[in-house]
């Protein structure tokens, strides 16, 4: 099924050798040729010396899910030769370093081996060890350029942009690039049957990772306090926020910063800092991953019970425990939805890609302040750390933050008495005052039992009144969180339900299912609690598949608990391998159930 602008290739290298930049160079060059492209980085949880992979998919139709078939592999890591060579589809191609003989045991006769003396060429061309290692990456980039008919002007241009200030480095990289390119031209008939051809399909798009996009959202939403503790794959979010703040939030004259980023001593402290800042009136957030969410449970319950706004970004990784920190999963759903002991429920937003990370990040801050409660944005490693092709991010300058019900001096003065937790409007949301607002608005936040006046209580009725209000408030959030994206097809006989990063794979799967005669409507859930639209879709479909990336069908559990939709009316399609979802996995999951046999 490979062809012009429709194929996938993969680099198998050693981490810490600089291959990442070459891989990025290739992907971005294809992007600049106007061709839709996706890149997935599959890397180990260490710093240097272990196998790492980069998969690039080119798709004229604009499919961005992880490819299932690999047409070409660049095998540069002896430690993973066997595995890498095995992943190439029959008829595919293996590019390897012919400086050393390839173990015959590894050869396959259903694939073509193209040997390129990367090592030898580098040793000849360069003297310093560092260069010999680093530049090898540019050499294979050049080789691929030739094999795939990449417009070489683009990578050259990009190298110029990157190393403009370092002519020597630039020159070396260009030489390396040419070495690989020329060798391929001279020894193989280029281009390969599957290759690149200019298009004009990326003009309005960008390549960006979800962590950066979410950070931009926080910047534009007016977040001023960010508290965190480093953890893969969430680290990039705060680092990006820091970089953007240094660029847009520092007074050029005084060097004064209009933001505060605190690297806390742990996740408990990070949550405490964010909650303290939210109470004080700042838009505050913390970013973490599963282990951090577990450690923040107590503080989350405090914020819930005391109506304090705060945004939590959970960039999910493969659990449980430390799990696989550099693999992706959607397995924190239950931990987030009902975080903390006692009766608690929390709004969650589920971005499907970096573009939504930007939008939902902004929405999360509005929702947190409007509903005065912790709001979660559930990313995952794939969305957070990989570069995705998405539409350019846009901003409406008319936007004003929704601070929710905050009483200013006049509003306060107008009141006969201020009762922090009185539900005046019947929406479960009570007006708050900020510290510093004076005697009349002063109140005492307590995680212990309190009545609607924020006074301590051990009285059943007074306690329940507050708990019931919180339940009402949560119910109201159902229509305020992002509504599902629903794609209906005439004559659909099944409904596919999914969330977050599964989106791309599920949409592609729906197309492929149609080709095999299964017409499916698709609903991608974007927020928790679930609103009427979600309920309707589920009720309107006889046969439902719930596609998610965890072992225990956690999304399905939430749907069952919150909407009362019978569990067994929803067939789970679960993928918890730790890698981005592929359309094939979805197609197989569905067809296996429908026909009893895999597609």
């Amino acid at each position, binding site marked *: 099924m490979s062809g012009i602008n429709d194929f996938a290739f993969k680099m198998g290298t050693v981490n810490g050798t600089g291959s990442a930049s070459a891989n990025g160079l290739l992907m971005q060059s294809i992007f600049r040729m106007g061709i839709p492209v996706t890149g997935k980085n599959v890397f180990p949880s260490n710093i240097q010396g272990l196998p790492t992979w980069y998969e690039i998919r080119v798709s004229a139709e604009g499919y961005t899910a992880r490819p299932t078939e690999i047409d070409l592999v660049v095998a540069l890591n002896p430690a993973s030769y066997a595995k890498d060579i095995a992943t190439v589809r029959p008829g595919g191609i293996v590019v390897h370093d012919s400086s050393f003989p390839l173990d015959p045991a590894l050869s396959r006769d259903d694939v073509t081996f193209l040997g390129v003396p990367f090592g030898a060429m580098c040793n000849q061309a360069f003297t310093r060890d560092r260069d010999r290692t680093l530049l090898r990456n540019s050499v294979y980039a050049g080789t691929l350029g030739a094999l795939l008919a990449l417009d070489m002007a683009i990578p050259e241009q990009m190298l110029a942009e990157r190393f403009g200030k370092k002519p020597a480095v630039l020159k070396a990289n260009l030489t390396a690039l040419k070495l690989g390119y020329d060798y391929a031209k001279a020894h193989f008939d280029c281009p390969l049957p599957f290759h690149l051809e200019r298009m004009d399909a990326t003009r309005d798009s960008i390549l960006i990772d979800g962590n950066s996009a979410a950070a*931009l959202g926080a910047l534009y939403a007016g977040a*001023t306090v960010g508290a965190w503790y480093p953890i893969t794959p969430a680290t990039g979010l705060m680092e990006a926020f820091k970089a953007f703040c240094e660029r847009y939030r520092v007074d050029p004259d005084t060097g004064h*910063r209009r933001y505060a980023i605190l690297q806390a001593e742990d996740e*408990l402290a990070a949550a*405490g*800092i964010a*909650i303290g*800042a939210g109470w*004080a009136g700042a838009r505050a957030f913390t970013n973490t991953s599963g282990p951090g969410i577990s450690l923040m449970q107590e503080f989350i319950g405090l914020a819930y019970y005391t109506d304090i706004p705060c945004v939590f970004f959970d960039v999910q990784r493969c659990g449980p425990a430390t799990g696989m920190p550099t693999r992706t999963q959607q397995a924190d759903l239950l931990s987030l939805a009902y975080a903390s002991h006692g009766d608690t429920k929390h709004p969650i937003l589920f971005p499907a890609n970096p573009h939504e990370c930007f939008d939902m990040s902004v929405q999360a801050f509005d929702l947190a302040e409007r509903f005065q409660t912790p709001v979660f944005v559930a990313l995952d490693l794939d969305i957070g750390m990989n570069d995705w092709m998405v539409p350019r991010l846009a901003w409406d300058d008319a936007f004003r933050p929704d601070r929710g019900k905050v009483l200013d001096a006049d509003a306060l003065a107008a009141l006969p008495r201020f009762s922090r937790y009185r539900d005046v409007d019947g929406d479960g949301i009570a007006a708050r005052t900020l510290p510093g607002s004076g005697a009349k608005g*002063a109140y005492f936040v307590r995680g212990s039992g309190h009545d609607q006046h924020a006074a301590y209580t051990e009285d059943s009725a007074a306690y329940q009144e507050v708990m019931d209000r919180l339940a009402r408030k949560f119910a109201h959030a159902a229509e305020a969180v992002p509504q599902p994206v629903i794609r209906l097809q005439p004559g659909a006989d099944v409904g596919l339900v999914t969330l977050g990063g599964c989106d791309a794979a599920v949409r592609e799967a729906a197309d492929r299912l149609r080709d095999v005669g299964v017409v499916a409507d698709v609903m991608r859930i974007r927020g928790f609690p679930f609103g009427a639209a979600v309920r309707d879709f589920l009720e309107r479909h006889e046969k439902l598949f719930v596609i998610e990336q965890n072992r225990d069908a956690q999304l399905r559990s939430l749907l069952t608990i919150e909407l009362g939709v019978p569990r067994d009316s929803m067939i789970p399609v679960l993928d918890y391998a730790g890698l981005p979802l592929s359309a094939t996995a979805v197609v197989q999951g569905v067809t296996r159930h429908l026909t009893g046999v895999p597609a």
Partner: protein
Amino acid sequence: MTSIAKPPVAHPSARRNGLGLTVRDYEGGMSTLCAGCGHDSVTAAIVQATWELDLPPHRAAKMSGIGCSSKTTAYFMKQSHGFNSVHGRMPSVTTGASAANRGLIYIGVSGDGDSLSIGLGQLSHAIRRNVNMLYVLENNGVYGLTKGQFSASADIGSTSKQGVANEQPPIDPVLLALTLGATFVARSFSGDKQQLVPILKAGLAHRGFAIVDVISPCVSFNDHEGSTKSYAHTRAHGAEEVHTDFVPLRREITLPDAAADVSVVQMHDGSSVRLRSGRGEHDPTDRAAAYAHVAGCNARGEIATGLLFLDESGREMHDHLHTVPTPLVDVPYAQLCPGSAALDALMTEFR
């Protein structure tokens, strides 16, 4: 945290401070602590100190964790916002509040369980960050609210009400704070208002983290023979080293027994602290000397009280963060959002 509305009886002192407020205006809800609890005396000292300082109630924020001691933030300054958070985590909540609004004066109250067991990490890192706050540690050597288990500050040999002796070495918050680089370290005793009030005022005026370890006996579980945190024991062993006498610029207050050997330290906010070294044993601006002195007292079974160390040159959290002078909560949104043009320009870098 229980707080009962106070019956309206006129307060003895109707004297008004610089803001025209009476001491009564600095009080809070009625205490529900045990009759005679040391913590109530500390509350009274805080009321006195804030009143004498002309501290505007709306500019103060009361922060605490969980415990009998942590409940007391409800018993003073009812006109101020208060945050009774979770056990041992008040430092992080205050760090966040301070980051968001540096314009407020943060008064933290904690206990030895709250600070030295579950909260040891957060206390230590708040010290390291030099969060600008007064941190009052009401130290009774036990977990009062959970009925008298030993805390990490219980001294070896000290026996709990059940008569079992503690066998683990105590953690001295003063030595810990000195080791971690605290810029204001003091210790006092709930029964010695004359010493405590000026120390609290100095701590409030200090720019940075000011920790005051207050020996505050638990009458229900630890104020009996054998307890080294009892009134009796502290009176017998309290070796006062440095008297503190806080002098706001407006009006000078001097302790009745103020006298010789006075070293005046300039406080960052322009006011000054007059330190008198009881036995002239150590220079309260020398960290090493302070440490040696306190450790020495401990070794002799004495408790060094008074303002033990002070460094007015320390940089508080916001200095490290280089934040704008305006509290972040007051920075207008227009100065926070780069706008559409900037975003459009930025997008070209993602191609």
